[in-house]
């Protein structure tokens, strides 16, 4: 090796050594040690410990709370990833327009992702209280449901009548024609207001909320109601990030593809499914993978909920590990084993999604 090369390598090593050292201690050594601990009965209090083989793993799968955590984590991952991927894509599609002020909206939408999970979770706990804003809002909507239904009904009716008239005149307007929809909206608002003023359609009286979110013992679709609250919270805070990733992907799709599709007579919806979705495949792969990893390893929101909700109704894998170390005896062996299960689960899920789910390659 020429000496200049060797000097360069030495300097490179010098440059990278702080990073390597940190990597070595806090990642590699840490991971190896976790693997080792998972086969021992180490606790935080005692210094001595014994090798126990696979006993920790056997114990874990016999423990009710761990199984709950596992079930919650997998359910949480599936629900949140599905919903937030669709919503993020829909939001990004709305935002992917050449209109004035679009950057402003894009910036504003990103706010929930910028703020700390601690602050947002505290606000969310307030939201989910019995007389918190979520129940207030639901109560308002249900009290105003006669008005809202009337409005929607008149809108659809007005739109149908207008589209019918235009088609009779020979204009091939789409059922969602925006210009006609604007007129329908004005008509619907005016008529609903009139019916309200006449006292025919009036909101019901709002009743004090009964439903509890965080202390509810019931389940819905196999997940406890308090965990559903965290599902909503997590979707709310993650959509903006995923939306921005989708948006960057959307802007990379060549305009000519849409023009070609339009010449072939594809409707906007057809363009979306035949141009946008396939072209976005690599981005969707990234979003889904990030989302799967993020939801499986979700910790902050559960930890911050604390005793606002019963532990067994919100516990997930990441919190189970933390809780085993910092409560009671501090059973490091069990916690390490659970952490390894989580790590393996993450790899398996990512691998499965790569193989059977949305793949990296575009068509």
């Amino acid at each position, binding site marked *: 090796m020429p000496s200049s090369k060797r000097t360069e*390598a030495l300097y490179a090593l010098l440059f990278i050594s702080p990073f390597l050292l940190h990597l070595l201690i806090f990642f590699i050594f840490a991971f190896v040690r976790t693997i080792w601990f998972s086969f021992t009965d180490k606790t935080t209090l005692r210094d001595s410990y014994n090798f126990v083989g696979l006993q920790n793993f056997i114990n874990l799968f016999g423990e009710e709370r761990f199984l709950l955590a596992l079930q919650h984590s997998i359910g949480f991952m599936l629900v949140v990833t599905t919903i937030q991927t669709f919503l993020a894509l829909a939001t990004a599609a709305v935002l992917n327009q050449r209109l004035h002020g679009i950057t402003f909206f894009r910036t504003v939408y990103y706010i929930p992702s910028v703020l700390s999970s601690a602050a947002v979770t505290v606000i969310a706990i307030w939201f989910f209280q019995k007389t918190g*804003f979520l129940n207030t809002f639901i109560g308002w909507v249900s009290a105003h449901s006669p008005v809202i239904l009337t409005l929607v009904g008149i809108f659809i009716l007005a739109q149908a009548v207008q589209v019918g008239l235009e088609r009779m005149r020979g204009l091939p307007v789409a059922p969602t024609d925006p210009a006609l929809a604007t007129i329908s909206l004005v008509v619907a608002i005016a008529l609903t207001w009139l019916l309200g003023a006449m006292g025919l359609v009036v909101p019901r009286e709002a009743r004090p909320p009964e439903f509890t979110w965080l202390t509810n013992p019931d389940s819905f679709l196999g997940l406890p109601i308090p965990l559903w609250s965290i599902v909503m919270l997590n979707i709310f805070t993650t959509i903006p990030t995923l939306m921005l990733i989708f948006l960057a992907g959307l802007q990379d799709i060549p305009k000519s593809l849409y023009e070609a599709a339009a010449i072939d007579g594809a409707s906007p919806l057809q363009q979306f499914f035949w141009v946008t979705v396939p072209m976005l495949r690599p981005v969707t792969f990234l979003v889904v993978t990030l989302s799967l990893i993020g939801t499986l390893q979700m910790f902050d929101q559960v930890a911050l909920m604390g005793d606002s909700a019963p532990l067994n109704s919100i516990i997930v894998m990441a919190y189970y*590990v933390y809780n085993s170390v910092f409560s009671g005896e501090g059973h490091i062996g069990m916690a390490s084993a659970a952490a390894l299960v989580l790590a393996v689960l993450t790899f398996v899920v990512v691998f499965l999604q790569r193989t059977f789910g949305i793949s990296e390659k575009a068509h």
Partner: protein
Amino acid sequence: MATQAMKPRRKLDERYLARQRWARAGWIYGAMLALGVFFIGPFYVAFLGSLKDNPLEWPFRTTFAQVLPKNWVAAWKLGQQGAGNPWLGGFAPGANIPFEVSYFVPEGTEPTPPTVTVPERRAGAGLGAIFDEVQASRYAQVSPVEEVSRRPARIGDEAGQVVTYRFTISYPRSDPALDLPTAARLPLDVEAPRGQIFLTATLDPNRLERRGRVASWDSAAPGFFGYTFKNYVRVFREARDPNTGSSFFLRWTVNSFFVSLMAVLINLIFASLAGYALARMYLPGKGLLFALIILLMAVPQQAMFISNYLVLRDLSLLGSLWGMIVWIGIDMAKVFLMKQFFESIPREIEEAALIDGANPIATFFRIILPMATPALGALTIMTFQGIWNEFFKAAVVLSGQQGSYTLPLGLSFFRSAYGAAGDWGLMLASAFLSMIPIVILFVVFQRYFVEGVSTSALKG
């Protein structure tokens, strides 16, 4: 999107198409506005809640005492009269505070003056209750209540009259030489006789108790902030260290800044050094290292924190901010960011410097780093935001040492200290206060945030 309208099966006239374009833009703006409400609305209503006396009140009101300009003016004046402090108010020697209260007295009832008391009242639940603060009740003197005016009025079907009373609360300075303390608050209870209905007062009361008979003020001389942002002031006043008496929240803010800035500094230097070495320098085994890093990025934090916790314990860095900083160390994602940036700059520049005979260290700090300002800016902002919001590492390292908490951990502490008592005003206020630096950073550097996500995610 407007193009597909241009290809109808039959020719449509231009005016129709223009109308349609306008309408479509209108609907898109409408949709964006609705989305904006969805993303920002929750923060807006929570902010309203943080101003209220009872954030969990039902039904939810959007107009309440704290948002009425009438009360802002009154609170300002009363603060000035109480302690010469229009912002935070108080009750200082020499204060002389005139106060008016109006009642509706139904016909057939003889108007009777209300009973005015300055009660002894300790600061709410949680940490504040420990402290022995100066009680205004010990020094306040209330003048006799006089009737000012009567005028006939109706409430609903009921006829009667509105009677206004006036009294003065003063803090006599008995001996100028005597060093009398200033009370932070001047609690006030005004109890009306049965049958009289409270209508208005110089300042709207914080609560109406006993079926509206007792109007109660947390402070009759609150000042503008002390009234409108009561819960925010309480975050600083009530949550204090039981040993030193200094504000927890200020301490946590300082801690958060310290940890975030140190992390930024460390990453600025070492992540760019490592990124440069990976991007440009000859290093055997680079590919292997790369693969390893990618693999490690997918390993959950939970599979590593146990050992890290024990390492920090052995170094006796638990409960110390330095422990958190050491653990945060150099972020892999930031090394990647810098590597990518250095790969994008032309090689000729450094080669020219190297030919000049400068050693790599000098080249790096004199020539390479100054060129990297845009990337370093992005790195600074991303690191600061990430560490300011970091909860997991703080929870592992700092647990139990309230004095060295960072803000996210502090919020979690508040949640457990005040959550049981349902003191949502204070918790919401502290959540909003903790956001301020990030919101400012976001408003100023929004492009870095938004572009950072999309570009780093797509390239990475």
